[in-house]
C-alpha cells in the first residue's frame, strides 16, 4: 500500500480541497444568516470564468482573481435581491443561478474569443504561483482563512449578529440588528469566497476556463458544509476529507490487489456522497441547520 499513501497524496488532497474550502466557507456565511445557498456552483463558475478571462487579458493573476471575486459578488447580489427583497424561493433561485452560469460564460466567450467552450490558455508565468511545485498560494490562503472565519463568526459583534439572524431574525431585529442589510452582506460575502474558489480552479489548478469546469464541486462544498454542521473548523476537516477521498481514488484506480484485480474506482468515488447521506440521516450526530434557514424575513410578520 506504500505506493498509494505518500506525501504527494497529502498535497494532492490539499489541492483538491482548496476550492471546496473557499466555497464551503462562503456557503457558511450565507447559511448562518438564514439564506440557503445552493448557488455555490454557479458562483464558483462565474469566478472561474471571469478570473480566467481577466488574467488572460491583463496578464496578472491577482487582478484576475480580483475581477473574479467582483463578478462573484455581483452575481451573489443579484441572488440576494431575488431571495431577500423579492422573497423568491431560495432553492429555485439558487438553481437558476447555477443554470445561468452553465450558459452565460459560454455565450460571452463565444462572442469575445469565438470559442464557445473555453477561454484561451494562460501562460504558466501568469498563473497563481505554486510553492515546491505542489502547494498553491491559494491553498495556503484557504488554510489561513479558516481561523479568520472562526474568529469572525464567534468573536466579533458581526458574527454574533449573523448567528442571531440565522436563528431568530425577529428577536435580532427587536434587538436592533438590521436583518436585511446583514443578510445582503452575508450573501455577497459568500459570492466573494465561492468565486475565489472557482478562480483557483481556472487560474491556479488549471490554466483555462472550460464550461461547467466546477463539475459539481459547489455541491460537494455544500455537502461538506452540512457535514461540518455549519462550523468553520469542521468545514476544514470535511473539505480535507472530501479532497482526500478524491485524491485517494487516483492511485487506487491503477492499484492492483495481490490477486491481480483492481478496485472499482466508482466504489471509492461514492464515499463522500454516502457519508453525507449518513450524516443527514442523523447517524453521526445530529446536523442541525440554523433555525431560520430558508425562511424569508419581513418585518410585518
Amino acid at each position, binding site marked *: 500500500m506504500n505506493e498509494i499513501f505518500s506525501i504527494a497524496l497529502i498535497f494532492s488532497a490539499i*489541492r*483538491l480541497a482548496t476550492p471546496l474550502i473557499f466555497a464551503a466557507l462562503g456557503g457558511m456565511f450565507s447559511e448562518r444568516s438564514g439564506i440557503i445557498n445552493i448557488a455555490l456552483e454557479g458562483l464558483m463558475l462565474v469566478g472561474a470564468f471571469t478570473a480566467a478571462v481577466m488574467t488572460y487579458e491583463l496578464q496578472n493573476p491577482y487582478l484576475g482573481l480580483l475581477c473574479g471575486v467582483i463578478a462573484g459578488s455581483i452575481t451573489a447580489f443579484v441572488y440576494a435581491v431575488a431571495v431577500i427583497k423579492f422573497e423568491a424561493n431560495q432553492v429555485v433561485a439558487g438553481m437558476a443561478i447555477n443554470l445561468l452560469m452553465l450558459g452565460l460564460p*459560454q*455565450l460571452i466567450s463565444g462572442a469575445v474569443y469565438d470559442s464557445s467552450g473555453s477561454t484561451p490558455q494562460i501562460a504558466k508565468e501568469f498563473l497563481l504561483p505554486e510553492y515546491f511545485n505542489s502547494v498553491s498560494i491559494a491553498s495556503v490562503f484557504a488554510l489561513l482563512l479558516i481561523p479568520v472565519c472562526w474568529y469572525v463568526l464567534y468573536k466579533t459583534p458581526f458574527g454574533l449578529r449573523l448567528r442571531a439572524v440565522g436563528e431568530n431574525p425577529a428577536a435580532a431585529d427587536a434587538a436592533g440588528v438590521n436583518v436585511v442589510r446583514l443578510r445582503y452582506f452575508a450573501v455577497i460575502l459568500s459570492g466573494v469566497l465561492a468565486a475565489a474558489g472557482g478562480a483557483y480552479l481556472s487560474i491556479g489548478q*488549471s490554466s483555462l476556463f472550460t464550461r461547467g*469546469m466546477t463539475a459539481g464541486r459547489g455541491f460537494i462544498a455544500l455537502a461538506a458544509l452540512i457535514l461540518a454542521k455549519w462550523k468553520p473548523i469542521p468545514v476544514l476537516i470535511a473539505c480535507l476529507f472530501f479532497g482526500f477521498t478524491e485524491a485517494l481514488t487516483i492511485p487506487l*484506480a491503477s492499484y492492483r490487489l495481490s490477486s491481480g484485480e483492481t478496485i472499482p474506482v*466508482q466504489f471509492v468515488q461514492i464515499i463522500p456522497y454516502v457519508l453525507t447521506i449518513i450524516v443527514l440521516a442523523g447517524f453521526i450526530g445530529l446536523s442541525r441547520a440554523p433555525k431560520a434557514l430558508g425562511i424569508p424575513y419581513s418585518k410585518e410578520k
Partner: protein
Amino acid sequence: MKTKIAIFLICLSAIIFSSCASQTEARKDCNIKVGIVFDIGGKNDRSFNAAAWEGVQRAEKDLNVCLYDVEPGNPTSIEPAMRAFAEKNFDLIIGVGFAQGPIMQKVANDYPNINFAIVDGVIFEKDGKTPKQNVASLVFREHEGSYLVGMIAASKSKTGVLGFVGGMDIPLIHRFAKGYEEGAKSVNPNVKLVTNYVGVTDAAWNNPGKGKELALSQIGQGADVIFTAAGNSGLGAFDAVEQFGKTNDEANKFVIGVDSNQNGVKPGFVLTSMVKRVDNSVYDVVKEVLNKQFNGGFHVFGLDKDGVAYSMDDNNKSLISAEVLQKVEESRRKIVSGEIKVTDAMAK
C-alpha cells in the same frame, strides 16, 4: 410571490436557451444544408470536436454549403436539436460523439429520407445487425494510432513508466489505452502503464483540474510520458508536465495529445499527438451528399487511409529520433498489411 418566481425563471431560461444553441446565420444561395450537433465538449475543445468543426468549416468554404451548428449545453438538448434540423429537411445531419448514438438511432428511424452521419458511433437497423442505410457511421481504428504513439512513448521514456489519462471511463477510451499499452510493450516489454480516468459522467471531458491531478499523481509514480484522451480535461495534463520544466532545453516530462494536432499547445512538452482525422471524414461525407453519392453504413478509418496517425511538425521533430521514426513507420506498414494485430478493446 409565485408570479415573481415565474417571471424570474422565464427571463433566466430565455438567456440560457439563447446561449446554449448558437447558430450561424442563414444564407440563401447554397447547394445543400448541413447541420452539426456537437458533443458536450463543445466545438472549441482543441481536440475531438474541434476536428469535426474544422472539417465542416472547410466544407462550408470549399463546397458552398449552408452550415448550422448546435452546441448542446447538456445531453438532453441533443435530441431536440437533431429533430429541429430534420424537421427543416436538412440534407445532412452530423452528430459528433458516441453519446449521440442512441439518439440518432431514434431520429434516423423517424426521418428515413434524410441523411445522417455520426462520428464515433454505429447505427444499426432494428434487427441490430444490418447497418442503417440513411446513416454513415464514421468510426476510427484508434487502437492502431495509439499503438504507434505507445511505441514513441516507450522509446522516449527513461523511467519505463508511462501514464494514460482517459476522459470518461467508456469502452471507446479503453481502446486508446489498450493500443497504447501494446505499442509501448512492443518496444519495451517491461514498461509499466499507469491508467486513470477523469470520471464516469460527461463532466469528465470538462475537468482540467482533475486531469492535472491525475497527471501529477502518475508523474509521482514515475511516469515521464503521459498520453491523454480526455478532451478539455487533457489540457490539465499539459499544465502538469510543463510544471516539471526543461533541462538542457529538453522537457523532463512529456505529454501526448489526442484527436487534433496538439503539438503546438505547449511546444517542446508535447511528444506527438494521436491525430484522428475527424475533419477529413466529415468533409468527405458532406462532399458525398453534395455529389449525390451518399453511402450509408460503416466507414472505418484506420492507419491505411490516414484516418488515424501520429503528428510530426516543427514543434516535435527534434524530440523524436530518426531511428525511432523508422521503427514506427515499419510497424505502421505491418499494421496496415495485417502482420501486426492490435487488440481492439471494443471488439467482443
